[in-house]
């Protein structure tokens, strides 16, 4: 759990383990700045508003508690009576299409398959009917068919319980199939954002272009893949100016001197790149 993506995901709910901490920026959820809440208020947010789904479910389930217990503890305050709580747990397992939820609730993580474990994690997250679910690479550790099922499930849950979904992924196919809006991040900064269709059809940032160029197209075997030279920068000492400039095929002198300002490509489609900066700003 070292990548920038995951840390971004964790920091949204202030779950970055010690000694990490949030130094700058704000996180606004339902009109409140999450980064300024007290620890207690933050727990309230996690309990009632936002939940999280992780990459490798087998590591995120406590090995010595039953699935039912791990779902139940998150909703204990809503269902003080044991019977109601149990019913809610079964309902949550049912809602993630787990067969025989009564039995699965008594099982332990090691008795479930990877796909079932991920469903259980999703059940624990959605049992509280949060308004937001943050999913960090929820399908990378799974087989292709199971991946597809989990993605469908997430989509269905979105409409069923009316939650918003933030999906953090490097899998462009997954993003294209699930998301309505995309934020492209490089070195912990947003470089481009817009409706999914616009981003995929008309990428503006050189990094986005490179990303899309790295997709294997099964129909066009001969198409050369774009390969980015160099490696991810050290985030404790990021490059000056645009963080992408050392690896950018279209870098200009200004790119290493100043951060590019946001530029609008079309309605809702924004990019942070000097190539698209308005002349007035560039001068």
């Amino acid at each position, binding site marked *: 759990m070292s990548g920038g993506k995951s840390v971004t995901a964790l920091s949204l709910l202030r779950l970055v383990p010690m000694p990490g901490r949030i130094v700058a920026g704000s996180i606004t959820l339902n009109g409140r700045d999450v980064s300024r809440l007290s620890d207690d208020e933050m727990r309230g947010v996690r309990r009632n508003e936002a939940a999280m789904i992780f990459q490798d479910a087998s590591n995120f389930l406590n090995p*010595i508690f039953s699935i039912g217990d791990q779902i139940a503890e998150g909703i204990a305050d809503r269902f003080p009576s044991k019977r109601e709580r149990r019913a809610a747990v079964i309902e949550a397992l049912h809602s993630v299409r787990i067969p025989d939820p009564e039995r699965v609730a008594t099982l332990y993580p090691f008795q479930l398959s990877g796909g079932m474990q991920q469903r259980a994690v999703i059940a624990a997250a959605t049992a509280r009917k949060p308004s937001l679910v943050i999913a960090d690479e929820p399908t990378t550790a799974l087989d292709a068919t199971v991946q597809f099922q989990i993605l469908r499930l997430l989509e269905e849950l979105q409409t069923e319980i009316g939650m918003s979904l933030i999906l953090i992924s490097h899998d462009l196919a997954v993003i294209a199939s699930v998301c309505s809006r995309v934020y492209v991040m490089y070195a912990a900064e947003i470089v481009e954002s817009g409706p999914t269709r616009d981003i995929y059809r008309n990428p503006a940032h050189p990094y986005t272009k490179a990303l899309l160029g790295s997709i294997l197209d099964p129909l066009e075997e001969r198409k050369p893949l774009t390969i980015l030279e160099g490696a991810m920068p050290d985030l404790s000492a990021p490059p000056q100016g645009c963080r992408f400039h050392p690896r950018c095929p279209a870098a200009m002198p200004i790119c290493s001197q100043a951060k590019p300002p946001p530029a609008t490509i079309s309605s809702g489609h924004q990019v942070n790149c000097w190539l698209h900066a308005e002349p007035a700003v560039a001068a």
Partner: protein
Amino acid sequence: MTAASLYRYVLLRLVQLVPVVFLIIILNFFLIRLAPGDPIAYIIGDAPIADELVADLRSKLGLDGSITQQLLIYLSNVAQGDFGFSYVSRAPVTEVILSRLPATLLLMITQYVLAIAVGIVLGVLSARHQGSALDVTVTAVSVVGYALPVFWLGQMLMLMFSMKLGLFPAQGMMSLRYSMTPVEKVFDIAHHLVLPALTLAIFNLALIARLARANMLQVLRLEYIIFARSKGISERAVVYRHALRNAVLPVVTVIGLNIKTLITGAVLTETVFAWPGLGRLTFDAINARDYPVLMAMFVFVGILVVIANLITDIIYAWLDPRIRLQ
């Protein structure tokens, strides 16, 4: 379902442990036969006994017959709980040992409760406040505690709290007063229990605190702790429900592995404080050349260790479903 699988597990472990006890008993038999001189000398010891009684005993134990015959007689005796007669105490060995067992159990259980409770609390606190004064102290004490000879620790505690400060009695388990109400008697025993239990607990605590700290540090960094936090449950529940129970598992294993050392420690501590348990019995048996008691103690402690291992296995299985349900 859970109860049934635990039951099956216990049975399985029991079956696995039988050969070990059997081997200890056989080894015990052959050691006496290998020792220089007539085995009968080790059975009687220094006790003055009439010749005809000795001859009687000889035929009873089959000492004139073949070694196989002797072994079979010995095994059948042991199987019936008969470890022979202590001519020093003038009582059957089994009786002598069983009469001393309660004192040792009281000492062991008290020190375990103390060492496990305090050791785990100290370990958890120092893991949660890594680098604090408490953490440094706990780490230092656990290194020194591991190196301390337990009987010397007992002697030093006795010197300090009994001789110099006069807070606790130095010797024995009860005062030599006759008229005590049952309540007074309980307090009197507890008063005598403090120093020996503390001695053993300090020794044991050092190891437990050190392990609990290390495991806690490791577990607190794992992913399922983040997941537990993401559910919005209290930090207390995260640390004490999710982390502690996982961190305690290896501690249980080590406590089980360490039971032999602890029984040794109890023997030495009982000797220091004249606590009338199995340890003191061993010490007295050595001095009085009461070999039947020594031989039986070896087997008895072997059985005790096996039972204690079984109990830790059961606790482990109870705490960890992965073991219980396999």
